[in-house]
């Protein structure tokens, strides 16, 4: 019991909270990317996928609460540790060189705060429809398969990214997110004490690889809209515009 208390009060524990919550968010990002890529498959597919998510009911809320908790813990631990770090070096060096650390690893707090800012903006935009209400409520979509009228996620996203300022803001946020992820993977494995040489052999490459996949994958959607590969769906007859 006493060792458990030691554990909970230590910075090593706070780091473990940061690493596990971060990995959970990365897991979500993989799923989110696969879902989003359905934009390339047309309105029927992505709108049907969005409907499917909505119909998960309580399960959707389990995932949402898990994500909110992970995000909350991640931000809490980052603030907790950043404050300690600041206190540990009250007087800065006159001259300080970085040795083998990467820029991404030195700017985790900055990229993290940019992500936090973006996530709020992103939710206000595509989840709550507050940023661009005109595109959010731009009429429903009638499913070809069932005839059901559903939220037109496809057209909402296309209309969103046809605004170059919105598209640019997403691209900048993606750059910060990739930078964060590129250091996060190897860092999390080190924090979680994965010493198995067969695994640690490739953990240093895992972060940059995943960062590149996220960057290319997520970027492909706003770029697809901007170069016209993803176009607005034609209006349907039975839907009130």
């Amino acid at each position, binding site marked *: 019991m006493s*060792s*458990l208390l*030691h*554990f909970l*009060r*230590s*910075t*090593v524990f*706070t*780091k*473990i909270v940061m690493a596990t919550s971060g990995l959970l968010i990365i897991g979500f990002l993989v799923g989110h990317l696969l879902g989003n890529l359905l934009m390339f498959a047309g309105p029927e597919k992505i709108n049907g996928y969005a409907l499917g998510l909505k119909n998960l009911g309580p399960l959707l809320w389990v995932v949402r609460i898990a994500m909110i908790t992970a995000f909350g813990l991640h931000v809490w631990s980052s603030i907790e*540790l950043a404050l*300690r*770090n600041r*206190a*540990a*070096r*009250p*007087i*800065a*060096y*006159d*001259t*300080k*060189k*970085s*040795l*083998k*650390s*990467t820029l991404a*690893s*030195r700017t*985790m707090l900055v990229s993290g705060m940019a992500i936090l800012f973006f996530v709020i903006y992103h939710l206000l935009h595509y989840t709550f429809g507050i940023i661009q209400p005109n595109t959010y409520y731009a009429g429903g979509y009638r499913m070809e398969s069932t005839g059901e009228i559903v939220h037109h996620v496809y057209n909402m996203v296309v209309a969103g990214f046809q605004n170059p300022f919105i598209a640019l803001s997403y691209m900048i946020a993606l750059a910060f997110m990739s930078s964060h992820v590129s*250091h996060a993977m*190897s*860092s999390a*494995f*080190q*924090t*979680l*004490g*994965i*010493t198995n040489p067969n695994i*640690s052999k490739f953990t240093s490459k895992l972060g940059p690889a995943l960062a590149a996949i996220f960057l290319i994958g997520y970027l492909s959607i706003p770029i697809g809209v901007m170069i016209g590969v993803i176009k607005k769906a034609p209006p349907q007859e039975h839907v009130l515009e």
Partner: protein
Amino acid sequence: MKLSLKVWRQKNKEAEGQFKDYALSDISPDMSFLEMLDVLNEQLLAKGEDPVAFDHDCREGICGSCSMMINGKPHGPESMTTTCQLHMRKFKDGDNVVIEPWRASPFPVIRDLVVDRSAFDRIIQAGGFISVNTGNAQDGNTLPIPKPDADSAMDAAACIGCGACVAACKNASAMLFTAAKVSHLGYLPQGQPERQRRVLKMVEQMDGEGFGNCTNTNDCEAACPKGISVKNITRLNKDFLKATIFG
């Protein structure tokens, strides 16, 4: 060689310090960095000024005293080298050299370039030992130790406690030091009985001293004059988790 030095001067713990500039000439490239500072101090003494205080003892890279930040790098530009073993031929004629003490709140500056590194001693006291009964040492060969483990233990034991890891870390974290001290006993059979208690106690002390925490940037590994690997940090984290769950 001619050099322009910018050196941190501070009378004592409480005093406010500031940088002072000194010009040196006739420095031999064969001198060590500390010998160059000796030359500076003799000139200062001749002028009736206070010499620059700096720590040193062995001058052969094993005691870990000669800590100072040289042009933004702990122990200067040469990797795997302590300040006492750094030669002036690594600098160019006319170079500007900035010399500062380690900067970390658990390492208060006592005077000029000298910091108090007792925080490291207290981390060792918290668990960096093995308890054995006194008496005759047993025959070495009665305790077989796999060669890779013995090697890893020796690598970790190469830590001289100089504090370069803390100095280089952007968070002033002492994880590499603590991890080396946890590992060099943890790899060996003699270290097993107290292994769990050791890691918990040493981490608790490390936190209590006010060091920052590790964000795995690995600058410490590059700064270490003995090349201690960050693998020891991963091992510490693993031992720590295990000690909590099973200890």
